[in-house]
């Protein structure tokens, strides 16, 4: 494996994780609550891509807009079932209600698709391109471009449009936003729609390379949660950076024996997938304990 391939793998995984983490942060900022079903929404996106692909026989890039529209509607449904009835309660209530939503989604997927893993169609094709003497997977490159396009579109909506400003105002402070005449509930519902559409897009992107099974949600929610925590709670650029760090760790750590053949003298067992997961969990714990405000966040000061 060349350095370029490795870099591309990191970037592709990071792009998909970033979409998940951004959706997680958007809901966190708009509601002050963790949406624990967010990982299951990624899983639903993956299965939706599988079904759409089987039905329409079209490449992923064409399915993507249809899928994101459907996922946006699902996001509004999640908000209506699990957030709006609880908006006046402490944020843990939403944490638990979205755990329930996750259980529902996971078991619904299990009933419909069974426990076996499925693959979604690729964005364009599955071939390899040759760049600078390295063979690069088309899908990996397409993931990066699509995710970058979505993030750019999101950035433009948030900074250049009136709706985007209203969404940001709602995320800053719901009470003040309501006081200046913004329809906060509509904005929160819109945030759920956007965040869930992004989760669905990530599901489509990931389900081609990594397949999708009904129990995938727990893994993705943990990744998003961790990315947002190490990036700084509530920060969107932080979430992207956090996703990049996680992806880099996940791709590079198990590849160390491949990158340095023979240099490790039989210590290859220390670079298995499981050990890699344990190592990352421990690193995250250390970060949580030493810098609870995240790697890049500033220590927040609160008034008692």
């Amino acid at each position, binding site marked *: 494996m060349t350095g370029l391939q490795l870099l591309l793998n990191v970037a592709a995984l990071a792009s998909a994780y970033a979409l998940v983490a951004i959706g997680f942060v958007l809901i966190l900022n708009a509601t002050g609550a*963790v949406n624990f079903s967010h990982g299951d929404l990624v899983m639903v996106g993956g299965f939706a891509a599988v079904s759409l692909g089987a039905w329409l026989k079209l490449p992923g890039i064409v399915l993507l807009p249809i899928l994101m529209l459907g996922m946006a509607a699902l996001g509004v449904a999640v908000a209506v*079932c*699990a957030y709006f*009835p*609880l908006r006046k*309660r402490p*944020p*843990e*209530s939403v*944490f*638990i*209600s979205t*755990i*329930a*939503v*996750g*259980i*529902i989604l996971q*078991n*619904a997927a*299990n*009933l419909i698709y069974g426990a076996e893993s499925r693959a979604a169609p690729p964005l364009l094709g599955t071939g390899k391109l040759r760049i600078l003497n390295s063979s690069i997977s088309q899908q990996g490159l397409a993931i990066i471009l699509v995710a970058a396009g979505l993030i750019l579109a999101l950035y433009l909506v948030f900074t250049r449009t009136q709706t985007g400003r209203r969404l940001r105002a709602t995320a800053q402070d719901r009470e003040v936003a309501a006081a200046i005449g913004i329809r906060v509930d509509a904005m929160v519902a819109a945030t759920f729609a956007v965040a869930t559409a992004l989760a669905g897009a990530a599901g489509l992107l990931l389900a081609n390379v990594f397949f999708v099974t009904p129990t995938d949600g*727990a893994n993705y929610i*943990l990744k998003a*949660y*961790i990315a947002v*925590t190490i990036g700084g*709670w509530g920060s969107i650029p932080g979430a992207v950076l956090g996703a990049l760090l996680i992806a880099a760790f996940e791709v590079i750590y198990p590849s160390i024996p491949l990158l340095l053949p023979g240099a490790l003298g039989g210590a290859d067992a220390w670079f298995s997938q*499981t*050990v890699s*997961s*344990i190592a990352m*969990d*421990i690193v*995250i*714990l250390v970060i*949580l*304990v030493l810098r*609870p405000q995240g790697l890049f966040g500033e220590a927040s*000061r609160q*008034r*008692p």
Partner: protein
Amino acid sequence: MTGRANLLNAILLAAGIAYFTYALGFGSGYTLRVLSVAGIYALLAIGYQFIFGQAGALALSQGTFMGLGAYVSGILDTHWNIPFGASIAASILVPVLLAFLVAIPVLHLKTHYFALATLIIGQIVLLVATEWESVTGGANGIGGVSGLVMFGQAIRPGWPSLALVWGLVAIGAAIAWQITRGLLGSGFAMMRANEVTARAIGIDTDRLRLMAFLLSAAYAGLAGALYVHTIRVVSPDVLGFPVMVTSLTIAVIGGRLPIAGALLGAVLVIELPEWFRFLRDYYLLAYGVILLLAVILMPEGAVGAAQRLLARWLPAPPPAPPPRRALPAQAAAPASPNLLDITLLEITGLSRRFGGVRALDDVALSLASGEVLGLIGPNGSGKTTLLNVVTGIYRPDAGQVRFAGASITGQTTHAIARAGIARTFQTVSLVEEMDVLDNVAIARAGGALGLRAALATKPRDPALRLAREEAMDLLARLGAAEYALHPAGSLPYGVRRRVEIARTLALRPLLVLLDEPAAGLNETEQADLAERLRAIARPGRGHQGGAHQGVALLVIEHNMPFLAPLADRMVCLDHGRVIASGTPAEVQRHPLVIEAYLGRQAASAP
């Protein structure tokens, strides 16, 4: 409230006995086994209520602790032939030890960080159990675990096992009830309502949270040991997400606080799949829907909802308030006949910055025993920051705070409160659902809260009775005695303020710091409050209860007609610096003070 809770518990107990009789009489071996498993989850949930309910922390590690207990018991049994009865202690201690180790770095984290940290710890344990094949059997786990054995006697499956499990549930429930029914339970309630306030009335909240976390791990370890000897196998499944979600679900459906809720919730959650067998594969879907509906419709859980209904149908007669009893004199009281001669609080060179802002800049002031000092200054001048540094909520960057002759710089908030500095905050925080009397009484006992004390408490706790009688006296001194048995959440604003001041006095302080006590009061209430504060500061002057000793007051206030007649001396802060001090009249006339409030031109006008 207590009468109704007892009635509800009696109803639940009768229903439980009826169900058990039915199961023993007509149920198959399988039915009894399911009921045993429900008992195991009841123990798990009673433990979870300590950290999730009492301490109010969203821990996602309860399944991990149970799984750990199951592995310890299973490994001891299959590797070394140590039966259930002999390995109980180890299966409880290992999870408690893990809880203790992770508590040191993790327990102070805020809500969502704490939830994530506990989730990650669970992941690590799960990965280790899967990977460490020689000991844990890897992904397949350990089979062939022997059944329950106690004192060399094999406990047969069926009713003997059921009796053992539910006997342990009864013991576990009794211990949990004993721990939480008295002052310690009120301490937990105060901590949930407002942690900073809880510390400011002398409650060591870190200690309470650690206690709750260790107890939850202990119950989970016992549940794990019972589980592995009932199911006879242990695999990484027990460490997975679903067990954790089950304990959370039981606590949400049954109720976070009432112990009856843990039992009811466990029976419901474990038995439901049996009752809804006809749903087959859709059951798990229905399970998610039920959890969602429970969160939305029953915020206090089934037991809380039932209590609320009972309260509507059977209004309880109001109980009689306890008699008054005057507080004993302060332990640390200076023995000088002329109290005003003694410097009680001495602040020197105190500085604190926030980023680039100097909130306090080389502040020095002192306060004599029994003196009333008014602290004024424009908004943002550092008044509240000064109180926060004195009470240990913020650490100073430089400077010293000495109190009653000893340095208290850098001490914890609860230690400072116990040393004799009590305070109020700008926003009132009382435990809304607890009555006023206990809101005050808890401050009397804050320093004495502990597991050993709670376990040793007799059925009628003399310490609680004493604390309530003394609280009654304080409420009378603040003119709030008539509200003693009302829930604090039902009080008008002015009364809440006075209850909060009564609570500070329950600490038997030498010094009380009041942060804008008159804010939001009308003129009659202000005059009344000023009169009562004067009586607290100088009880000798003809007011009833002359045995009380004068308490020094440091009062932050913007309201000059309220403050000026009350204060012996005034200090004015601006931009974190002392710009004037002296008699109220001197300070109010001081050109720098006028400039700080009104601007330079006003100050220089003739």
